[in-house]
């Protein structure tokens, strides 16, 4: 599904990713852990197409396409989704309108018919029920006045509605209390399927108690320095990242 080979990338004028390689197959869940400033969020932003992050070398193939040559909206339409670390507030635009606009833009790109408002309403009401979230989320302006936890839940809800093929969760667990963490994790677990993959960027092992990863990678100084199974996350929790300096 996703093959990142020896990628170099700058955030602004600073070199952040320095020869990162990673392969994600359909249905796999990869956790990316690492110290502050290692390049975890830059990786997520690079894959989603943030203009501030510019590739300098290497390649990213996604379902046979050169991902880095596509606009952010094209990447979304072919199934790439980034759950933001800091979701953006958009006053005056309600969640329902925003999501329907996004979904129909993606469907149009893929040559599918637009979903009318009645169909859409039925679908989102079912989704919000399945994901155990409150339906007042739909009527409120996008992320405006949301608590930190509500913003993260809204990201997971958007993911549920847009049904991406590759979901990148950038520190979705940060700022969540334990109940909110469970709701977010349940939302992700419901979406797990044989043809949907996840890259979960996190600082802490606790999210991985609820979302079991197939692989855990340690990202340090712009590249992956160690990979393993879920036990690696437990080791990191015990040992921290001090060993990287040895």
């Amino acid at each position: 599904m996703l093959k990142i080979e020896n990628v170099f990338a700058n955030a602004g004028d600073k070199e952040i990713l320095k020869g990162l390689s990673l392969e994600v197959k359909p249905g796999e869940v990869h956790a990316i852990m690492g110290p502050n400033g290692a390049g975890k969020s830059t990786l997520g932003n690079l894959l989603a197409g943030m203009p501030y992050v510019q590739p300098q070398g290497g390649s990213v193939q996604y379902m046979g396409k050169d991902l880095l040559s596509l606009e952010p909206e094209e990447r979304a339409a072919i199934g790439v989704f980034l759950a933001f670390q800091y979701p953006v507030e958009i006053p005056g635009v309600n969640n329902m309108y925003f999501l329907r606009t996004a979904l129909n833009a993606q469907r149009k790109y893929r040559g599918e018919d637009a979903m009318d408002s009645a169909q859409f309403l039925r679908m989102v009401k079912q989704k919000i029920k399945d994901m155990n979230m409150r339906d007042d989320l739909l009527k409120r302006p996008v992320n405006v006045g949301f608590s930190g936890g509500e913003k993260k839940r809204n990201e997971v809800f958007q993911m549920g509605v847009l049904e991406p093929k590759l979901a990148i969760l950038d520190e979705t667990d940060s700022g969540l209390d334990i109940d909110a963490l469970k709701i977010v994790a349940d939302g992700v677990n419901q979406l797990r399927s044989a043809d949907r993959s996840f890259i979960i960027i996190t600082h802490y092992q606790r999210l991985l108690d609820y979302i079991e990863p197939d692989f855990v990678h340690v990202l340090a100084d712009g590249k992956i320095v160690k990979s393993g199974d879920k036990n690696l996350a437990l080791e990191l929790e015990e040992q921290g990242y001090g060993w990287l300096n040895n």
Partner: protein
Amino acid sequence: MVGLITDWLKQPEKLAQELEQQKADEIPAWLQEKRQSALQKIQTMKAPSRRLESWRYTDVNRLIKDLDSFQSTEHHEKINATEKKDSVVIVIDESGYTGIGECPDWLTIQTFNNMSPGDWHEFDFDSESVVSLANDLLVQTGGLISIKKTSQPINIHIVYAFDEIDDWKYIRNQFKLAHGAEVNIIEQHQTGRINVINVYDLADHVVLNRSHDIRLNSSEQFISFNLFEIPENVTVTNMNQHIGGSLQHHTHAINFNKTGSKYTSGSINKSFDNNHITDIVNVNHSFKNNQSDVTHRSIAKDQSQIFNNAKALVAVGADQSEIEQDLKNVLLSPDAKIFSKPELEVYADEVVAAHGSTIGALDETALFYLRSRGINIDQARDIMIESFEQEAWVC
């Protein structure tokens, strides 16, 4: 002043002829006197120029420009007055106030011919407002629109619809709202090169929601001077949308004349191509315990220009006044210009006042957020602009 008459208003001979002609058409004597007085005053003033604060950011040559030179091919969708079933529609055209049919008993309209001279609102226009003094001199259409209190809020829809679109049309609407009246007034432009004075003379306990919806094609021009005389326990909400046009120049003067009232205004100014828009709000807190809340959201694109100015003057003794001025502006292209100026002049001791002004581009992170959900960049910008405007929607 010679420049103003010869270059902008009219050739002196033509002006004299026109005034003479209007005498023959039985303009009341009192109005002739007002005009003579305006003529004497205007002759002492200079033509509008960039030396004046309120015209500094506008190409004043556009005032005299032949509108044909813009060669606009845009047309407005005609506003269908008969479809406004819940409103009394007043169309203002070459024939004056038309389209009303039979006036409801709560509404009285008196044109200049049957209006009492005592009802004529006297202004003391200065150089900055010389274009409105020109209205005093050349006013052709208008009168006194008196509205009584009713059991339900009432709706009035004013439409400017002139067939002849090259020459300036001078209009004065004086609204007089009775004690306790609740009125929604929508003022909308359809066709015509308009110079209008609106006077809102409000009694105590009035609730006025006013919407000023001026959307012009690239050759059209609209100048307005809007005065709100606000006594006690009055609520005024004034929503302005100024979109496009070769030239738009709007001045709002708000006078708090007693206590316990609130004025809230929102302005959305949108310019593109080569539009010039000026939006000035002057609030005079002459008495204590009044509140004014002025919000502007302006968006400029291409080579267009916008000037925003919100000024509040709080007089000595006008304690417990509350003032907020919030002016935010977005530039969508490198050649567009916005000049934004919030001003507070406070002479009272106990006042709560806040003002702010920002100018910038659309937030890149928010744009990326929308794009990352599949929305293309043009639609993402539209959504961002819609979101930006929301805070100025006051009614």
